[in-house]
Every structure is written in C-alpha cells, then in structure tokens.
C-alpha cells in the first residue's frame, strides 16, 4: 500500500519541477489550475495559490460556523418543542449573521487586571489551529489545499494548539472561574487526545497510509470497504471511541466541564466579549466540522459513495458533506440530550476505560493484521 503513495509523491515532486499540462493528479485543484495559468515557480503563482486557498478556507470556515450555529439552534429547538430562530430572514437563516454582526460591533472589553499579551493572544490560537487543520481536510479527490505525506501527524500536532488558547486565555484574564476552567481544559484535552490518536493510529496501522487522501483511497469501493465495516468489530468500536474522544476534545456536552455555565458561568471565556468571544466560538464550530470530517475520512470512506457505481468525479464532496452532516447531527444530539459529567468522572472515563480499551482494540487489530485475516 505504501509503494504507490511514494511513487505518487515522487511524481508530484517531479511534476512541480517540470510543469506539464494539467493531469488532475494533485489533491489541490486550485493549485493545479494556478500553476497551469501563471507558471509553476513564479511569485504570482505562489501568491495566487495561497490567496485563493486562504480566501476559500475563510469563506468555508465562516459559512460552516454560520450554518452550524443555525443548525444547532434549530435542531435543539425541535428537540425541545420550540421553533428556534424564525424572524431574521426566511426561517431565521440570517440569525447567525445578525448575531455575528452584533458581536463584531460590540465593545471588546478587557478587565483592568488582565494581562494584555496573553489576553489578546488567546482567541487567535484556536482559530489558527482550526484553519491549519482545515488545509489538510480532503473534501473531495481534488478539493484539498495540501495533502502532506504525514497528514494525520500534522492534524495531531496542530490540534494540540487549541488547548493553549484556552489555557492562556483563562490565565490571562485573571479570573478564578476562568482559571478553574483553564485547568480543566488542559487536563481534558491532553487526556482525550490520547484516545483520539490511538483511534487514528489504528487506521494508519490497517491502511498503511499517513496521508489523508491515502487513507480515503484505501477505502475505495462499496460501503463494505469503509474501515468501520471492513474491520467488523474493531472498526466500529474504534469509531465509537473516536466520536466520544472528539466530543471531549470539542468541549461539548456531556464533556463541557470547561464551559460549564451552571458551575463556572462560562469558564475560559467569562471575561471575553465582542470579537474575541466570537473568535473562540468560530473556532469551536470549525473544530466541530473538523472532528466530523476526520471521522468521515478515517472510518466512513471520505468522499466515496456508498456504492461504487454512484461515484461521479468532481461530486465526491456531496457524499463527504452528507456523511459529515450525519456526524455533526450526532454531536448536536448528544449536546441536547446528556447532562454534564463531573471533571473527575471524565478523567476516570478516559484513563480507566477509553485508554485501556483503545489499546486492547489496537492490539487486536494488530494481531489480526499480522495474521492476515482481513482488511486487505
């Protein structure tokens, strides 16, 4: 499995040097197009490529956050026998935009005793982390900003950055509630990262790929070739663990001890207002998309259609969106159903259950793989 990838990487490297005609072999469709029209190694091509990609990601992130907030409010409203937003725009779809504009023009209030540097640095870090991860999310075969060889390692490395934002922000705002919340977020994100990575490691182990496109390619075929079904029990368990760990990483109910409005009155963002506050939330919702997209990439076949003949080149993103939406709906469903765990129960769940179980799961997968029983 690894050999074709190396060949492909070499091919891409060669391609960049020689600038041939469009082959659509690269994951980044835009980059390919730009190279064709502006030349490969000009500053113009570099700038255009980067500019278009950044613009696309910012648009995607803002739109995603808008749609997710709207979806969350509508879904929760339906679950609670309410209507949700109805007034702003048709069916209230502009409500998030209105809220965003309101937050944008609100006064950014800084407490007198807060530390200037850390207080204002903190909202950027989760944003930066989520934008960086968005660059490697494969929305379609050719719809990805970059497909590094070690894509999954990149995701793991960058996602830790979001925790810094929360900790720095809570420390910088010099508030006891924020401090407690920051300590909780540090403990929580570091702990659940372990299970999350073990889930990713399982897929890397069985697929023999570390690039995200490679992992999706390893699941090409029908629905039975997706890793969740291809590894009958192990894959399903790993998927469930992945979703649990993602929910914890996202600080969403039942693991929202960091925010905990009934205990810590909002926690890390208790002293933030205006645009800084909304940046934390933008990052939170983009992270939701990322977690769902990673779940789809690793376990649910990425942009592949459930039946092979349904695959239409250039329209894989529709399948990707559908699968991602299903996981996102599950996240929203969890949030409006479960109460919150206590911090020590949450740690117990990770260190006494999820981590050992993930390790055993990984071990079983490894043994089965070495015996050559399935997944080939």
């Amino acid at each position: 499995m690894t050999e074709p990838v190396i060949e492909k990487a070499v091919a891409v490297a060669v391609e960049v040097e020689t600038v041939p005609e469009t082959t659509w072999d690269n994951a980044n469709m835009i980059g390919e197009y730009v190279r064709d029209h502006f030349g490969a190694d000009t500053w113009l091509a570099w700038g255009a490529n980067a500019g278009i990609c950044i613009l696309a990601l910012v648009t995607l992130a803002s739109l995603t956050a808008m749609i997710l907030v709207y979806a969350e409010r509508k879904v929760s409203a339906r679950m609670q026998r309410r209507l949700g937003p109805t007034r702003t725009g048709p069916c209230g779809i502009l409500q998030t935009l209105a809220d965003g504009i309101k937050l944008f023009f609100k006064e950014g209030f800084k407490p007198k005793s807060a530390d200037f540097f850390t207080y204002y640095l903190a909202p950027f870090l989760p944003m930066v982390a989520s934008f960086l991860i968005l660059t490697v999310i494969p929305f379609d075969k050719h719809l990805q900003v970059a497909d590094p060889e070690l894509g999954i390692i990149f995701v793991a490395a960058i996602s830790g950055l979001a925790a810094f934002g929360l900790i720095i922000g809570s420390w910088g705002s010099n508030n006891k509630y924020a401090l407690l919340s920051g300590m909780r977020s540090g403990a929580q994100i570091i702990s659940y990262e372990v299970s999350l990575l073990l889930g990713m490691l399982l897929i890397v182990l069985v697929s023999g790929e570390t690039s995200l496109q490679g992992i999706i390619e390893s699941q090409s075929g029908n629905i039975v070739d997706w890793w969740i079904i291809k590894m009958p029990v192990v894959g399903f368990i790993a998927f469930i663990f992945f979703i649990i760990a993602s929910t914890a990483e996202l600080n969403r109910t039942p693991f929202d001890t960091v925010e905990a409005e009934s205990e810590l009155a909002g926690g890390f963002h208790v002293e933030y207002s205006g645009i800084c506050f909304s940046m934390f939330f933008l990052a939170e919702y983009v992270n939701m998309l990322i977690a769902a997209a990673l779940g789809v990439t690793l376990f649910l076949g990425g942009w592949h259609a459930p039946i092979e003949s349904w695959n239409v080149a250039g329209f894989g993103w529709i399948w990707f969106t559908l699968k991602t939406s299903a996981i996102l709906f599950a996240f929203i469903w969890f949030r409006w159903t479960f109460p919150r765990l206590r911090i020590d129960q949450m740690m117990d769940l990770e260190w006494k259950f999820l981590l050992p179980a993930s390790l055993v799961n990984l071990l079983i997968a490894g043994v089965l793989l070495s015996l050559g029983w399935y997944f080939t």
Partner: protein
Amino acid sequence: MDLVSCGVPPGFPDTASNDGCTEEFYLNMGPQHPSTHGVLRLVVKLDGETVKGVVPHLGYIHRSIEKMSESQTYLQGIHLTDRLDYLSCHMTNLGLCMAVEKGAGFGVPERGEYIRVIMCELQRLQSHLLWWATFGMDLGALTAFLYGFDQREQITDLFEEVCGARLTMNYFRPGGSSCDVPDTFIPRCEAVLEGMKVSLDEYEKLVGGNMIVQERCQGIGVLSKEQAISFGCSGPIARASGLDYDLRRDDPYSIYDRFDFDVPLGTTGDCYDRYTVRIEEMRQSMRIIEQAIKTMPSDGPYRSKLKPVVKIAEGHVYSNIETARGSFGTYIVSDKKTKPYRIKYRSPSFSNISILNDISCGFKIADLVTILATLDPVIPDIDR
C-alpha cells in the same frame, strides 16, 4: 495581580491550613451566578476543585415583609405572603389565612376547602416541576429545563384561568378564596393531569434514568437523619434522609386527612434520594388531586361570610403547613386591633440552606451545584 491575596472572607476561620504543596483560595459564587437561582451569594473555599468550606451570605433580597405586615390589615397582608416562597404562593397564602381563621374563629365551607387542597397540590406539582427543570439545567441537561417548563406552563395556565395571576396568585382569603373556580376548571385540570402522568414518566427517564445523572447524584451531599433534625430541615430534604414527617399526614390541616396518599421516604439522604423523593411526591400530589376532584361538591359556597373588619382575639396564633419546600409556620401576635402586632414566618428554605456547609465539604465544585439544586432553595423565602 495575585489571585489569592484578598485575605480571608468573613465566616471562615483565620488559620488557612496549608500543606505546602497547594494553596487554597476563595471563590465568590453569586449573588449573580447561574446556579444560585436568584441572589444567594456563596463564598466557597476551594482546594483546586475540592470544596473545603461554604459560607452562604443572605440578605440580598430582604424586603422586610414581616415588618411591612404590621402596618397592614390581615387581608392586605395576604399579598405579601405570595412574595415569600413565590413557587408555593398558594401555600404561603394558606398559612396566613389559616392563622387568621384560627384567631378570628371562623371556618371554611366544604367547597372552599376542596378548592384549597386542589390548588395547593397543583402548586406543589408546579413547584417540583420547576425544581426538576432547574435541576436538569444545573447538571447541564438543558432540554430537561425546557420540558419541565413546558409542563409547568399548563398548570400556570390553569392558575391564570382561576385567579388571573400566573406567579403571585394572592387567591386565598380567610374563610375560603377570593373567587370560585370556573366551570371549565375541573375538566381542564383532569386533562392536564392525564397528560402529565405520561410525560412525567417519559421525562423522568430522560433525567433520572440517565446514567450520568445517577453517577453525579448518588453518594453526593449525604445528609443524615440526625443532621436533618438538628438543623431543622423539613420537606422533601428531611424525608430523603429518612425522617418520616409530613404535616399533611402528621398534623393534618384543611381536609388533608380525607385523602389517601403516601409519604415517600429516602434511605441514604444523598442527592439522588432527594431527587426520587420529589419525583414521587409529584405522583402523590396527582393522586390527591384526583381524589379531590372526584369528591368535590359541585355547588355550595366557596367562602364563608366574614365581618367587614377581621380582628384576632388578643394573644397569639400559629399555623403550620407543608409547602413544597417543607414546613412553613405563620406566627401572629395580636393586640386585638385590625392590624397584627407582630408576624413571624418560619420559612423552610432558611433552615434547609443552613446545612450547605456540612454536606458539601469534601466534594467537588460541580457537586456543590448539584447539592444546591437538590436543596431547592427559594431565595426570597430565605430572606423574607
């Protein structure tokens, strides 16, 4: 800025125990905090996440209701009792009305008594539903909050139909109530109960049957029977600790002795017992209302005829009733004038909140919120 340099707040011992590794600090919860349900202020001593001591600070909503009552006639004073425990305002009305009836020596007609019992039990149901809703919210289950309010709304609508008010009803008067219930009341009430039985079971599964709720409540905030007695706790909190005491059964007022109902008891006195006792009490309240609806006389006076001016014989009277939070006492000292010489209310929330420090030490800060939610204090009832 040092986070811990603010000194020792009032109520705590001066000597801070310091083991050299971690530093304890004080956290101010409230008066504006989402889980203190009003303007209760708690100063919490924390060691990391662990609660080392809690000092409740009262008085943020003190309105001098007892003093104000002295300058108003007995009838004028009724509306002030609504503002004590605003979630059981029919019952606090009843407390004053019963004391006045006792002192002035007149009775209540049969239909009036039935109206009183039905309204009081509907009120208990409504109060417990609101508690259930906010309990869910304090644990982070926001959907439970909306469901609880949805059910409560139906009872509030019933009250609105009967007396025009939704929160501070001011419905009972010495000798009966201010007006008769409308003809549609009984069928509407039956319909509400019918729907509530089904949805209560469903909703109870959502919260009480949830594993996370059970994990977070069992063994948390254990109140022993002896502690409950020595702190003067009453109501569901004392009953959850195994104290078999319900004024409706043990000192029946109004016509409670005519109805058949159980007094649910807990065994351990932890948060989960307090939860189950309240849920069971809601079912028992529904039982009482059903029996009352069946046997209620369909006509007759709802209020006995009073003299234009109500006066109480010189001396003192005391009435004791069971509100949704516990035993509520009204003590009137009269000098035979139209206005009381002194009125004292014994409010259950005040005694119930006093155990907070004893039962929450050693637990986590999240448990403090759970304990406070299961104690179900109403802050205006504490401060009066």
